């Protein structure tokens, strides 16, 4: 493999940056990965001539030919199963599942083979494949087009679960996922496909690799832990929180970026500093990612906590119809309500800024 991220001399030059969407950054990542490594093959439903229903694979079939960017029969288990065989032969398949809920037929291949093949064969048959899954709600999709399925994937040892929230991360994390010798479930927040940032596709800025969380907004009052589509929500909530409470709250926002591996160090360091934490995600709360994260924080930050770790999550309901989804999705108000419940009367951390010798 060549270097994961191309770095010409003008790397990161602000002058060359122009508005780009997350979808465009993902497209560029696929293109650059295919140019860098002839073993990278993109495959899925409508990814060829059409360029994908979200146009993330636009132009790839034209540039690389149908053998490198292949329209497949409409069969998700088959797509992933065939990708397993291709990976066994040494290729590096990048599979697109058209929508989150349409990835479910591929679960058996994922759980029974993709996640276990390396372990089963003691490293003899690694699975360097990437499964791209558009996920989450907020785009007015009818049933089966808005699920947050990350909890299922997280519960499966042997795969990595990655989700970008920014344009540079979309590029950098997808390149890292494709370069990884482990299988990566790459969850693309649908409603961020059209989100924009100033970005230079000829010199994408380097981003931390898979397994590293990033502090998107430093703060001192409490930590919001989130990922993917809920990152912009939390950043907005943090801005609004400056006007809330008695003296306003200065919220830290952590973008987890990768749910597996989980960056415990960054999370623990932040929560030990702020003493309060809220986990925010769209996925249903019961047995959701927030439960695991809250448990880990309790185990490692118990004496630093002013309040129980709270979760702001989707309700424990099947994903609602589009005209009702705004009541389901965690929004700024629901995040601020949770922050308000963080037992601000406690004040232990304020009295013990050095951690009380713990």
């Amino acid at each position, binding site marked *: 493999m060549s270097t994961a991220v191309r770095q010409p001399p003008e790397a990161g030059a602000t002058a060359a940056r122009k508005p780009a969407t997350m979808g465009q950054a993902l497209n560029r990542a696929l293109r650059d990965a295919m140019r860098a490594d002839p073993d990278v*093959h993109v495959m899925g439903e409508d990814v060829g*001539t059409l360029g994908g229903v979200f146009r993330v694979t636009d132009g790839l079939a034209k540039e690389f*030919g*149908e*053998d490198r960017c*292949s*329209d*497949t*029969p409409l*069969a998700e*288990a*088959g797509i*992933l*199963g*065939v*990708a*397993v*065989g*291709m*990976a*066994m*032969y*040494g*290729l590096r398949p990048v599979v697109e599942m058209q929508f989150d809920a349409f990835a479910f*037929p591929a679960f*058996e*291949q994922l759980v*029974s*083979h993709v996640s*276990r*093949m*390396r*372990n*089963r*064969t*003691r*490293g*003899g*048959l*690694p699975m360097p494949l990437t499964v791209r899954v558009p996920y989450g709600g907020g785009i007015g999709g009818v049933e089966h087009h808005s699920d947050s399925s990350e909890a299922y994937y997280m519960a499966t*040892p*042997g795969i*990595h679960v990655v989700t970008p929230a920014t344009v540079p991360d979309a590029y950098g994390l997808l390149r890292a996922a494709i370069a*990884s*010798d*482990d299988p990566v479930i790459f969850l693309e927040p649908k409603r961020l496909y059209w989100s924009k940032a100033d970005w230079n596709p000829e010199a994408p800025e380097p981003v931390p690799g898979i*397994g590293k969380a990033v502090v998107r907004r430093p703060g001192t009052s409490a930590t919001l832990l989130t990922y993917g589509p809920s990152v912009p929500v939390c950043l907005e909530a943090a801005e609004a929180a400056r006007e809330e409470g008695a003296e306003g709250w200065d919220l830290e926002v952590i973008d987890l970026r990768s749910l*597996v*591996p*989980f960056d*415990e*160090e960054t999370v623990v360091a932040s929560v030990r500093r702020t003493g309060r934490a809220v986990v925010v995600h769209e996925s249903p709360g019961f047995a959701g990612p927030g439960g695991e994260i809250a448990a880990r924080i309790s185990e490692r930050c118990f004496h630093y906590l002013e309040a129980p770790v709270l979760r702001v999550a989707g309700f424990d309901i099947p994903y609602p119809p589009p005209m009702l989804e705004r009541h389901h999705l965690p929004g700024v108000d629901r995040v601020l309500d949770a922050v308000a419940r963080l037992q601000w009367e406690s004040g232990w951390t304020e009295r013990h800024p050095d951690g009380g010798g713990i």
Partner: protein
Amino acid sequence: MTVLEQHSAYAPTPPPSWRPRTDPAPLLPEAEPYSVLGGEGGVRESGVEPEAELLLRLYEAVVHGRRYNEQATALTKQGRLAVYPSSTGQEACQVAAGLALGERDWLFPSYRDTLAAVARGVDPVEVLSLLRGDWHHGYDSRATRVAPLCTPLATQLPHAVGLAHAARLRGDEVAALALVGDGGTSEGDFHEALNFAAVWQAPVVFLVQNNGFAISVPLAKQTAAPSLAHKGVGYGVPGRLVDGNDAVAVHEVLTEALDRARSGGGPTLVEAVTYRLEAHTNADDATRYRAADEVEAWRAHDPVALLERGLRERGLLDDEAVSATREAAERRAEDLRARMNQDPELDPEELFPHVYAQGTQQLQEQAVQLRDELAAAEFGDGSGAGEDRR
């Protein structure tokens, strides 16, 4: 034009233009299972007599295979294997599959196909790793070109398609042979694999060993298809029907199909009609779902006896050669027994390092936890070691 464009190029279809996209007639299987040994006179359809050397190789392999099945079943009764799904009665299919493959071809076996892997040349002790339970897989798949034994039925079929397709994309003359049973043809993965193979014209051969039962469920409860070989027609894949107890016939049909696959002719679906003489596994009681006289009728069409008779008729085998082959099989069984009677070396710490290329922090912590537990156990009870709470 790319590999895929050759077969799946878009062609506009104006309203009145419908016609069958391919002629279904050449895809239909033969009316009766193709047979060399069982038929009157025992001459193959082509009229070409099989090479003596091949017949003797097949004979040796089925005799060894029968003894291997008996030995593995005995090892299960002695507690040396956790379970053994026997292929007794199906040795012709197993052996023919193992021997029909070219050196660069790949085999995709299920859990009942350990003999096919052994016939391909894999060390039986390594093949039996899954069923002994010391690891989920025991041989080097890349070196042997035998994929891991697959337990969830038919899920390895799309792997065979993908590997064959990848080989073709790279311009390698490599075919894949995927094994499945009659029950496995009901699985969705069977359908998706055949469909992908056909659309992509992947160099893959599917061998369905129709042994009559999916554990206890007979074929009549599994499918209403005219035959399992007929299922190919729906995908545009030619079907072949063969006497699965006739090692020579199975070998011939598979060799042809693999040659066709390697030379760009696309996939083939082969149904081999055979019978599982033993129960599903040692844990199964076959008397609950089938009659003894049915089993006896199939014993009269035993693949080992069939081949022995065929070779004797051709003057290729005499009593002396038969006993010599059986003795050789006995010696090999003794070797297997001796090696399987040794306790496997187990390393609990190996539970962690293969999960990912680089272990996560959480896995590293768990590995340390297990190491501490193991160290504490070595000190024995009452030492206090390992009792410090973290």
